[in-house]
Structures are given as C-alpha cells and as structure tokens.
C-alpha cells in the first residue's frame, strides 16, 4: 500500500502537517495547544478520545462545538480553538 502524502491544515492560522487518517484532536495535540478554555478559563485537552467528554470541542471550518476526536483532518481545514 503506497504511503499517502501528508495533509496541511490550519490550527489557529498556524499550518500543521499530519498524516492522512489523523483526527483533528490529534492534530491539535501535535500543535501543542489546548483544544479549549473551560468556563472558568482553564486550558483543556482531550480526555476520553471517544466523543463523550466534549473537551475536544473546536470550531472546524466555521462550525462551532465539533468534537475533534471524531473528525478526520482534510487538506486546508481551518481549525480554531478557544
């Protein structure tokens, strides 16, 4: 199986390179930043990895509150964390 070329996506306007099949949550971890700020301003990252904790919620291509652990990266995707 030939290796697929890497993808570029933007996380808070910063380009991040990932292998195809990478989830957006993992891409944000690779970028080394939190996925969101809690309601009292704490930095947070993914916890459960399976779509039930909601800590990985980010804005993807303009749509808010998406669970990034369940979304695969696509070329040129724009991700915004809070």
């Amino acid at each position, binding site marked *: 199986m030939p290796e697929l070329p890497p993808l570029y996506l933007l996380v808070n306007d910063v380009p991040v390179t990932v292998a195809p099949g990478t989830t957006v949550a993992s891409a944000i971890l690779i970028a080394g930043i939190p996925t969101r700020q809690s*309601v009292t301003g704490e930095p947070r990252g993914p916890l459960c990895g399976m779509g039930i904790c909601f800590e990985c919620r980010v804005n993807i291509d303009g*749509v*808010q*509150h998406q669970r990034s652990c369940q979304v695969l990266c696509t070329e040129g995707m724009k991700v915004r964390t809070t």
Partner: protein
Amino acid sequence: MSESWDVVIVGAGIVGAACAFQCASRGMRTAVVEAKSIGGGATAAGMGHIVVMDDSPAQLALTHYSQTLWQELSKTLPADVEYESCGTLWVAADDEEMLEVRRKSDVYASAGVATEVLDARTLADAEPQLRTPLAGALFVPSDAVLYPPCAAGYLMAKARSLGAKLHRRKVLSAHSGEVRLDDGTHLNSTHIVIASGADACDLLPALPIKKRKGHLVITDRYPGFVRHQLVELGYLKSAHSSTADSVAFNVQPRKTGQLLIGSSRQYGAEDTTVNQPTVAAMTERAQSYLPNIGELSAIRVWTGFRAATPDKLPLIGPWPEDDSLFLATGHEGLGITTSLGTASILADYLEGTAPAIPTAPYLPARFARSVVSA
C-alpha cells in the same frame, strides 16, 4: 412528634421559598415542608423570565408589582442566581401586530411601566439574528431573566437564616391547623400555606388546577447570539387559550451564553416524556423568527408542568371552609415573576395588613361555588 408554628408552608419551589422568606422576615415562626429538591418542580423546568404581562388588568398589576420587588431584591442576589436585566422584546411580525405593540405600550404606560416602541430598523439593530423584515417590537427594559433553582435556593437560605425550618418530608395531609408528615411528625400551625404548584391537588382535590405541560430546549454556549428575551405577540394567544395545545416563539439568552428555546402548552398530558411533534413545532417556530438558530447545538430537551387555573390568575389567599388554610399556587407560566408579589400579599393576609395592590382577583374564594358543588 408534635411541633407548633405560626405558619407551615407546603412546597419549597420559588413561590414557597419566597413565602418562607417573607413570613420569616416578618417574625412569624415558619416551617417549610419539601420532599424533593428545593426549586425542583416547575421552578426548575421553566424559563426564569421576569416579565410584565397584560392578559388582564389583574395580571398586569400583579406582574408589575412583583417585578419591582425583583428589581429591589436584585441588588442582593448572589452570582449563581444569574439575574440579568436584559429586558423583553415583544416582536411584531406584521402591521396588525404592530397595532398590538402600540396598544400594549399605552396599557403599560398607564400602569407606570416604561417601554419603547422599536421600528423595523431599530429592531434589526437590537437583534441582528431576527429574520427580516419584521414590523417592529415593544421593548420592556425593566424585565429580567434569572436561574430559578438558585433563586429559590437563595430565598430558602435567607428564610432559614431568619429562623425558618425546613422539613425534608412528604406531606400526607394538611388541614384544620395540622400538617401530617410521612415520618409521623405532626406540625400544628395557626396558618398553613399550600404552595406546591401542580401537585396542590394531591392535598386539595377540589382545587381548580390543571397541569399544563411545557417543553424547553437548551443550547450550547453562543454568547451574543440574542441579547434580550424575545417573545412573539402570539405568545399571549397561546397562554390565553384554555383548551388548545399550542406553541409560541419565546427565546431567552442565559448569562452563560446558552439559549433557552420555548414555548409549548398542552393540556391532558401528564407524563414527563418529551413529545417529539411538540418539540418539532416549537423549534420550527423558533427558526421562523431566528433563521440561524437551526444551526446551533441543542444539548437537552425537557418538560415541566405549569399549574393552570380556569381564569389564568393565581390563587393567593384564604381557602374557604378551613380557617387555617391559605393558597399560594396556580401561577401557570408566571410563577417566577409573581413569586415575590405572591409572598408579600400572602404575608399581608397572615398579618392582617392591607396588601400593596388590590387582591380580590386572586382570592381562592372566587371559585368557592364550584368548590362547594364539587
């Protein structure tokens, strides 16, 4: 076990809690009985909207009186009550509704409630998410929103700090100056106040109260999407009708940035399950006023029961046939708003002082004939 009180209040929803606070602060030895959570019934299910409404002069008087009491109390409310004077916008979809806006404006003015009539442009500026064109709106700046369970919690805490006692038990019977609890305790009291909302009929089957089911949807946080409580003028028709099931556009911004989407009214539905067609109609109506609301994330839907009387006015005052019994119930969709006014009026009755507003329209005795013949 036997105890002796000046007043025993059945129910610690917002009305019961407000009554407890009033009675305790007037020096009455006060006990409150609540089997479940404080503010856990209709108080928890509803919208927390403090609103002046003019379905009738008596409703206008009570809601206005009560709203001024809330404004006063708001200065001391803790943060978790989330009191916010965002005001209400009564939205007019067409010229006919605009006439209604102007009529309402005059009625509110005569009662001393300040309002502002907004035209289509001003409305669009005030609430950019509303569909255009709409005809305009009536802005009532003194209306507010809050988080009811914490408001009830605050009122109860204040009551207890003034000496009121809370019994976490179920009431088996309440009449003739004696309240019996399910642990065998007997509370003897000069006065008994039934403030248990839609469950008041469990203790007084003759009460003309029917459960009126409602649904609400809450979204995730979208700060600034909507800035005021938005209500369509048709809401009054929906609340006014005593028989038909209906939905009406009613959206509230919470301090958290979450949106509450309502409202629905159904009679004859006594179960708590969410009725999907009703929710569908309600959310579709909301989308017709706020087209982008459809894209927001809804995290929960729930139901609750308003205590509705045949004439849409609450029951506040002495219950005929039993000198010890008083009622503070039947508030339909205005329990949060009128809780403070109800409590003041009730405490006035217990003390023998003259209430601040005419209270004959709310007297339970107005249903006395139907009670006697029941």
